[in-house]
């Protein structure tokens, strides 16, 4: 019963705040409008320099086939490997292809000429993908039989047929939106009451700690629901991306993640003295959770010790599950184990949060 009054108070305070209502509305919009374009790890626009030491018709054919490829931006022909390297150092080129002397005679004799591909691998993914793709073109050019094999292998892409990076990233964006709305905002709220001294007043009233904590969290859960809905609508309106699986599952996952983040935020705020500290601690853990969650990089590529941490990383379960639902169209059975794990972690954190809040010291 007292819960009603406390929740009302929270909503009034949020509404009165000069900044929060704008943040709540603007944040999902900005995230959904900008982030899918930014979080694009699609490798494209690879700039290629060619050093043709052969200068034969055949070598020029190879150059033309690279020029014709949509995948590469043909930067020009250079006289020497050295000058091409200079281009890489200036950042004007990413990959250099060096065609050796006698290229055409070797090919004609059936020998294998050694074509050199030198890629700037500071960005590993870009270097690897660029050189792999370039070598496919070269191999096909040198060995027609290899081209034949390539043509016999077919690939069936499931789910994200257009290879649209946004389809992959948008489910993950929900996680980021949830993180701010249900993690950072309640933390700031509670530390704020601590700093203002109003928490002392609440502590001398008969309000139970459950009621106090729930009253702090429920408004943010409702806001989170609203924000998730807005984000899903925006994904549909802006990018035509809709969920392949059931919406109910998405909301279920979002609620479990909200429970985790808000409990976590509470724990942090219960142990912090001021806002700066709370934000820093929060930020520290959130960055680790995010980086190890598989949001940006595949978890399977991690070394085993790092992979082991994903078993206790709720973000990992959430991102895995939400991608299964939204992209792959999974049902409850396909994400059962993630849901259970997420719920378990969230409940443990919830218990800790309530235990760490003390009305009486």
């Amino acid at each position, binding site marked *: 019963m*007292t819960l009603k*009054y406390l929740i009302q*108070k929270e909503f*009034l305070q949020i509404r009165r705040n000069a900044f929060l209502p704008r943040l709540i509305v603007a944040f999902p919009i900005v995230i959904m409008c900008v982030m899918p374009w930014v979080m694009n790890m699609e490798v494209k626009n690879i700039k290629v320099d060619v050093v043709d030491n052969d200068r034969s018709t055949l070598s020029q054919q190879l150059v033309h086939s690279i020029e014709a490829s949509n995948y590469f931006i043909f930067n020009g022909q250079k006289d020497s490997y050295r000058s091409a390297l200079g281009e890489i150092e200036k950042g004007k080129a990413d990959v250099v292809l060096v065609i050796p002397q006698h290229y055409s005679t070797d090919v004609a004799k059936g020998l294998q000429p050694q074509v050199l591909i030198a890629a700037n691998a500071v960005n590993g993914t870009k270097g690897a993908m660029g050189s792999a793709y370039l070598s496919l073109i070269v191999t096909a050019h040198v060995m027609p039989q290899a081209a034949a094999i390539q043509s016999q292998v077919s690939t069936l892409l499931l789910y994200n047929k257009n290879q649209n990076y946004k389809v992959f990233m948008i489910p993950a964006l929900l996680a980021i939106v949830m993180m701010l709305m249900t993690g950072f905002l309640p933390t700031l709220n509670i530390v704020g009451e601590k700093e*203002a001294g109003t928490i002392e007043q*609440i502590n001398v009233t*008969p309000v139970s700690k459950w009621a106090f904590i729930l009253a702090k969290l429920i408004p943010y859960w409702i806001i989170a629901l609203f924000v998730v809905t807005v984000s899903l609508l925006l994904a549909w309106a802006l990018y035509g991306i809709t969920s392949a699986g059931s919406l109910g599952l998405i909301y279920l996952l979002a609620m479990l993640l909200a429970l985790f983040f808000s409990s976590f935020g509470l724990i942090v705020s219960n142990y912090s003295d001021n806002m700066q500290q709370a934000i820093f601690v929060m930020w520290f853990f959130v960055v680790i959770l995010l980086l190890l969650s598989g949001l940006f990089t595949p978890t399977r590529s991690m070394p085993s010790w790092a992979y082991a941490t994903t078993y206790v990383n709720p973000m990992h379960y959430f991102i895995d599950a939400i991608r299964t639902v939204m992209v792959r169209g999974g049902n409850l059975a396909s994400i059962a184990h993630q849901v259970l794990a997420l719920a378990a972690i969230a409940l443990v954190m919830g218990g800790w949060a309530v235990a760490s809040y003390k*009305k*009486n010291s």
Partner: protein
Amino acid sequence: MNAIEVNHVGKCYGKVQALNDVSFTVAQGEVFGLIGPDGAGKTSLYRILCSLLLPDSGTSQVDGYDVVKQMRQVRQRVGYMPGKFSLYEDLTVEENLRFFATLFGTSVEEGYDSIKAIYSQIERFKDRRAGALSGGMKQKLALSCALVHSPSVLFLDEPTTGVDPVSRKEFWEMLATLKQRNITIVASTPYLDEVRCCERVAFLDRGQVQGIGTPDEILTRFAHIFNPPGLEHDKGMKAGSENVIEVEHLVKAFGSFHAVDDISFTVKRGEIFGFLGANGAGKTTAMHMLTGLNQPTSGTGRVVGFDIRTQHEQIKKHIGYMSQKFSLYEDLTVAENIRLFGGIYGMNDSDISTKTDELLQRLNFLEHKHTLVKSLPLGWKQKLAFSVSIFHEPGVVFLDEPTGGVDPATRRQFWQLIYDAAHRGITVFVTTHYMDEAEYCDRISIMVDGKIKAMGTPQELKEMYQQPDMDHVFTFLARQATRSSD
């Protein structure tokens, strides 16, 4: 030569006229008082004179320099202690003092004489972090920091709010020695005894100077504000013999330090019990134990019939609490605050709304029902906070320095509310540093060094220690203190 000249100064914040055509002069070496209610424009005036704020109109000179055009010269000559002066909580007492001394181009050793009286009280805690000091101790350290150098002109914005009477006296004695060194002092204060220490005072209200003169002239001319008629308290109507608070051998220790050291007392229903003590004597800690915020180290206590150690949540249902730093949620309106706390104590919607109107009617405050609390003047916030704390008709209400920083007339109104509550049978447990308020209490205890040194009616205490008033009783007892800390 005049140390300060203020000519027709005006200042607006948006539509609010903070200062309106203010003019006065202060002579070299004078102790000048600036008094007036909260929101009268005192702080704006201080800031203008310190060259922190640009006036919209008018001119002023400090020590012969224009505060607008000759900022650097002014700043080299003035000392300023702002109203909400705060220390660096993560630095130790000594580090704070040293820093401010160096900042003003002097050293602690050089300035030691001018701060000795106050600093010696906290010197033994010089290695403690300022953040770990009690409220009054912080204020003393702040005073030491402000006085460690000797500027030509010293501005003090309510320097003694929250400081116990003994320390206040010592502070003003220190100011008197500064005067001997020909330092001009401008100070504001809500305490009448301090007003009387000034040579001349200006009474500022709603941004305008209402009058300038000797303290007696001003206090007589504005007697309705500074010396309102005494309160009628029907002491005959004493409630029953039932004990609402019973405390026996209560101790709270932080490590080896006993903040509250074996206190025992009882408070009867309907009584107004004044819980006095110097800064750091252990009042707040004791109150925290009674209200269930802290667990006692040893001893027993019962509040409204419940054990403070095991049944603190039951106690919380039957008490009200108002602390010095909190009044209400500033970003909620008056009605919303009342509704929130009514709801917390389990009242239903219709009860709340009828009682809200009743309350606001009684306070003559109906027009501000939907005003945000942060835009109310301090005195109103305090009255409102008190009314909210007894809104659910608790058995006992705890008030921790409820009237800090407001003028006598407003405090008188506040005490009228306390009497009304006591009449309705609510027990009042109150701490204060105003000794005139102590006289209003039915019974008083005076705490020194964590122990209760004296207890009885104001009349009994005055007779027992053969002192003319409570102020002297308090000073007499508190001077026996050997420790000063929380």
